[in-house]
């Protein structure tokens, strides 16, 4: 099956890309903050401030994942089915990590005991690092290819999901989110916590940029013909690299807001590069087949056209998405405006009536 990019399938491919970009930008810094919470927050008050930057928003951020998953199910059922069943154990690990991370953020503060808090802090660190790594691995596998049979089903084993390219992708996203989280923390805190967050951002930018660049280069070199799509993806990857470098300079100049915008846009352009390079496929197959003349070609790729829902469903859901996505964006943005005040870890506000307070605003 074939079709034009200017079709409902093309539209939904873009929507899915936007949803993933939204998810990875928002939960990306949640992951980074979670991973670094014990390193940047040295004592209980500082850790309160660190976690306090994401406490009111992490829940809403995670819904981007739910919607990305639900939209894939509705618009591209075959993509959803093959991806989720094929990467079964990877998705299971992501789920378990997200479960522990979510309850840990809520439960950590419920008891004062040191051991209780340490245990949940460990859950936050691991629950953030594991999915940060596994999302990179998953996206790398989607574009690099895993064995897919003629029914469009994953036909490989567990080890097929842990190739060199995929593992590099995992480390790239892990480092990128850690850096993104440090920049976010610098923007959202003040005092000693902010100073330390900036120091971490400066330390993390080199591995993050190097790993992201490495995965871009491997992707570019590994793909076949250099065509328009290749050039567009390369340009977007270039933009992402420039933005990452730029954000370092902005961190140095105390331009926290601009630095955060740069890392967020770097993630967006990386996701855009990925989806441009992927199109029209949605899952690349590594299964190869030789024909009578000895030419070997890749078969069984899933494309936007071979895996999509009917025209009726795509059109109807497009209307729903166009109405409700702007509404969600408005109230979610407003949330960030409400919680814009920087938090600090060294002030001890008067204990609240009900078991203490969060990191309080200083402005």
């Amino acid at each position, binding site marked *: 099956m074939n079709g034009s990019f200017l079709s409902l399938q093309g539209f939904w491919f873009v929507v899915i890309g936007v949803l993933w970009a939204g998810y990875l930008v928002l939960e990306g810094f949640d992951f980074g903050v979670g991973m670094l919470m014990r390193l940047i927050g040295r004592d209980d008050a500082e850790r309160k401030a660190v976690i306090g930057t994401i406490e009111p928003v992490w829940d809403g951020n995670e819904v981007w994942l739910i919607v990305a998953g*639900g939209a894939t199910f509705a618009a591209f059922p075959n993509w959803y089915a093959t991806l989720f069943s094929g990467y079964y154990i990877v998705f299971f690990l992501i789920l378990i990590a997200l479960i522990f991370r979510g309850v840990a953020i809520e439960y950590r503060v419920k008891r004062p005991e040191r051991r209780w808090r340490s245990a949940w802090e460990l859950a936050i660190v691991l629950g953030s690092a594991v999915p940060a790594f596994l999302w990179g691995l998953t996206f790398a596998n989607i574009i690099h290819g895993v064995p897919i049979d003629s029914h469009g089903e994953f036909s490989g084993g567990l080890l097929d999901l842990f190739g060199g390219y995929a593992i590099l992708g995992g480390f790239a996203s892990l480092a990128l989110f850690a850096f993104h989280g440090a920049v976010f923390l610098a923007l959202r805190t003040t005092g000693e916590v902010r100073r330390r967050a900036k120091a971490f951002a400066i330390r993390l930018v080199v591995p993050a940029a190097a790993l992201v660049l490495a995965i871009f280069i491997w992707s570019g070199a590994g793909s076949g013909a250099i065509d328009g799509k290749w050039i567009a993806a390369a340009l977007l990857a270039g933009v992402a690299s420039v933005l990452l470098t730029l954000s370092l300079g902005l961190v140095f100049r105390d331009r926290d807001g601009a630095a955060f915008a740069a890392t967020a846009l770097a993630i967006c352009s990386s996701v855009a590069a990925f989806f441009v390079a992927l199109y029209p496929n949605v899952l690349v197959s590594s299964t190869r087949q030789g024909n009578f003349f000895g030419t070997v070609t890749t078969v069984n790729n899933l494309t936007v056209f071979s895996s999509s829902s009917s025209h009726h469903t795509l059109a109807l859901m497009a209307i729903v998405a166009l109405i409700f996505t702007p509404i969600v964006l408005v109230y979610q943005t407003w949330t960030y405006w*409400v919680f814009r005040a920087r938090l600090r870890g060294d002030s001890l506000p008067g204990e609240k009536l009900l078991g203490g*307070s969060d990191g309080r605003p200083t402005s």
Partner: protein
Amino acid sequence: MSALAATTAELSRWQFAITIIYHFLFVPITIGMGLFVAGLQTAWYRTKQERYQRLTVFFGKILIINIALGVVTGIVQEFQFGMNWATYSRYVGDVFGAPLAIEGLVAFFLESVFIGLWIFGAERLSPRVHLATIWAVAIGSIMSAYFILAANSWMQHPVGYRKVNGRAEMTSLWVIMTQANLLEAFAHVMSAAVVTAGALVLAVSAYHLLKKNEVELFAHAAQISLVVLLIGGISVTTWGHLQGQLVSREQPMKMAAAEALFKTEKPASLSLFAITPFEKYPSKTDFNITVPHLLSFLTDWHWNSKVEGINYWQRQYQKEYGAGNYKPIVAVNYWSFRLMVAIGTLFVGWATLGLWLVRRRRLEQSRRFLRLSIPLLALPFLANTFGWLLREMGRQPWVVEGLLKTSDAFSHAVSVQAVAFTLAGFVLVYTLLAAIETWLVVSVVKGGPAPPAGEDEQPKQIELGY
């Protein structure tokens, strides 16, 4: 199907059942307590009486602990269709995916974004806007239930679709979103959530009344909870009954199994207590106490109408769909149904008794009533679970009634070892978290509400942040 594939399908079913039953322990609390707390905060906003502020904060904390687990176990549900039921997902995605995606975009976002604002925003928002945030959470969770039930009702009674390209494709979202099966299930589930919240508030209040702790405050809470329980109890039984009549038309095999009615009867007797042999597909009851005519009456309001039995529908389905066993497990349906009905009815009686005690001004002294109200809290959770067992297991062998069998719906790409591994993992993690959650809720309950503000202090805000 090979033995290995059969085991994969069987384990996948167990995993789905365990994870969804677990998830649904939290859902009714979120919906019911969300509404209850929103109501309390509204009362505080309107009257400025401090007792409402204190109750809002106290019950709000229980709501928050519960929401965390509800949210994270909900993600599992959305992933599992693709992970374990890939064939199902391919077949139904065009229809079933839509309400799921809409749920995320329209309902789940609302609930999740505003819960953060409600918990942490009290000092940063005006009281009116802060009140609006808890209503947004409550409305989000109610809409969420509506869309998920729309998807589930389509599995019970597929409408608004056509079979084309070897799958189901949507023809009318409107028909899917407004079919009677959905509307009645929604009313029933909402009522069940209200009963669950009512029972929870009653149990917590009873605990403190027995301890003679904050008697005035908790007598007030108990009174509210009894009214809520009575309204919810009458509503849940009424909608349950109407749903039973609808299901006897839309899924007659399910209802026949729920009544353990093997042979067609005219007039049909209602079974009160039956024993069916302990086998997967028994063909008769061994022992049965019945009330003549009553099943006919309950089915369509006529004392002498005919009600077709399991054996009849088995023959009909074989004619329509080919050889095979189309009977669900009778004992599971029969007892799930009866226990659910018994619990719902019990709460109507219990709430009536409690309100009578309130009227006689004897509630605080009725130690036996209060003491029994605490263990009764387990019952709504059991009734919720029985309800879903009946709805889902009564549909078997179908995953989508008349369209796709459960045994054909699982993921071919997932090995039996992988499912065994994840099943063990979920059970382990869920058990651990259930224990921690219960312990946390109990410690919040035992801790009681914060002391009232001093004479010279302003009444506090709704302070929920940690």
